[in-house]
């Protein structure tokens, strides 16, 4: 149990997927304009990450390693992730058309979100067991959501801030992201 809690804390704070490992920066900047769509995106990524971690783990153990074709890891994992994202897209389209519209192109882009593939590969590299893989996948989804929500909150306030004209929009967002990243480096000594 303690190990699981450690994995979660490590993933969310110490090795935050976006702010420390710099994976998944595209949706981090793209879907962080509004808090509501940031939460939706976070939930979608968390779902995909958790399921992708589990399935890629099974694929790795029972197919790739079994038949000694580990060199196919990347393409096999991408296949899994792409199928999952398609599934999530269908579900969201069915049950929340508004969220579907708000996420727009970033929803299918979860397929190419390096955070998802990154976590799947990190799970294998750290030779996690099944349960650890699942927890790590979920925790990294959580860490993505936390980063996204914090960033979206700040950006919503930045809308009202008196930003110099040349820094408005994306420039100030990038500076903010960099400062948040530096702030998260403060967690490094935690574990």
């Amino acid at each position, binding site marked *: 149990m303690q190990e699981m809690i450690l994995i979660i804390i490590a993933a969310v704070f110490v090795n935050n997927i976006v702010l420390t490992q710099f994976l998944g920066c595209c949706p981090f900047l793209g879907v962080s304009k509004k808090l509501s769509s940031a939460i939706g995106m976070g939930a979608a990524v968390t779902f995909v990450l958790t399921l992708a971690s589990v399935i890629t783990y099974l*694929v790795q153990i029972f*197919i*790739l390693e079994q*038949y*000694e*074709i580990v060199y*196919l890891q990347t*393409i*096999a994992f991408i*296949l*899994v992730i792409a*199928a999952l994202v*398609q*599934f999530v897209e*269908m*579900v969201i*389209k*069915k049950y929340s*058309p508004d969220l579907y519209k708000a996420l727009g192109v970033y929803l299918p882009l979860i397929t190419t979100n390096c955070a998802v593939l990154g976590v799947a590969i990190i799970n294998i590299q750290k030779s996690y067991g099944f349960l650890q893989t699942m927890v790590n996948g979920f925790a990294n989804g959580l860490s993505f959501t936390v980063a996204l929500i914090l960033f979206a909150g700040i950006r919503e306030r930045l809308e009202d801030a008196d930003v110099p004209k040349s820094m408005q929009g994306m420039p100030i967002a990038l500076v903010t992201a960099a400062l948040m990243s530096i702030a998260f480096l403060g967690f490094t000594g935690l574990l």
Partner: protein
Amino acid sequence: MIYAVISLAALGAIFGIVLGFADKKFKVEVDPRIDAILNVLPGANCGGCGFPGCSGYADAIVAGTAPLNACTAGKDEVREKIAEIMGVDAGEAQEPQVAQLMCNGGKDRTALLYNYEGLEDCHVAATMFKSPKACSFGCIGLGTCTKVCPFGAIKLGADQLPEVDFNLCTGCGICVENCPQHVLKVLPVSKLVHVRCSNLDKGKEAKTACDVACIKCKLCEKNCPQGAIAVVTEGNGSIARIDYAKCTSCGICVTKCPTNALEIILPINANRNVAQNTKSQKPHECSQCGLCQ
């Protein structure tokens, strides 16, 4: 090798089947007309209609919030097909519109202020003393419009001015929005006479900057039988402007213009050199018979 093929194929097949079932289960009922309209739209997602891409426009048509003729790219053919799908009258045919360049200051006609060696983009060049050319109003000629055109209708000509292929141009207006100098305009294709200059400076300054600048001499204004062209005040200066509602494209002003700032363009293609050849053959006698095509 064989395991690799089999296992990946099996994985793909399993995911395919699962997704197939999921698609049935999570099917969202959409109006079939949206798909039908989407199929007849050009699919360039140019945004000329004012909606986010073709699918946005298709949604808006079915929702009843968009007019049927908003698709400039698809022209009449698409409008009729959409009307057929929606089961309503197609309405009046509209004249096709094309982008026209309101500048004739090619590289040999206007002096250079400095040698620009930056990024090949008009927006970047426009930040440096307004333009690398002596005329700060004219076309910069780095071809940003050629890159943004979703239909590949604009090419840079020999004089480094964009040439619009009227057969490909749909009048969507993307180039107009992306031109930092605002020298492109979307106009009906039948309008043949244009003031190919955007320089608002006084006559002498304009002429120093560019051989073919409008020098505000008002000769065109005095000679126009329709009263369609006039030198009007605009911004901090003035320039000859055509009232396209009155202009009959007779071309008298073209023959009177002392600096060649006015030009007549036949809708054969966008090649200005062709137009210049026709100019010497008294364009005001053109009866628009179409034989030359």
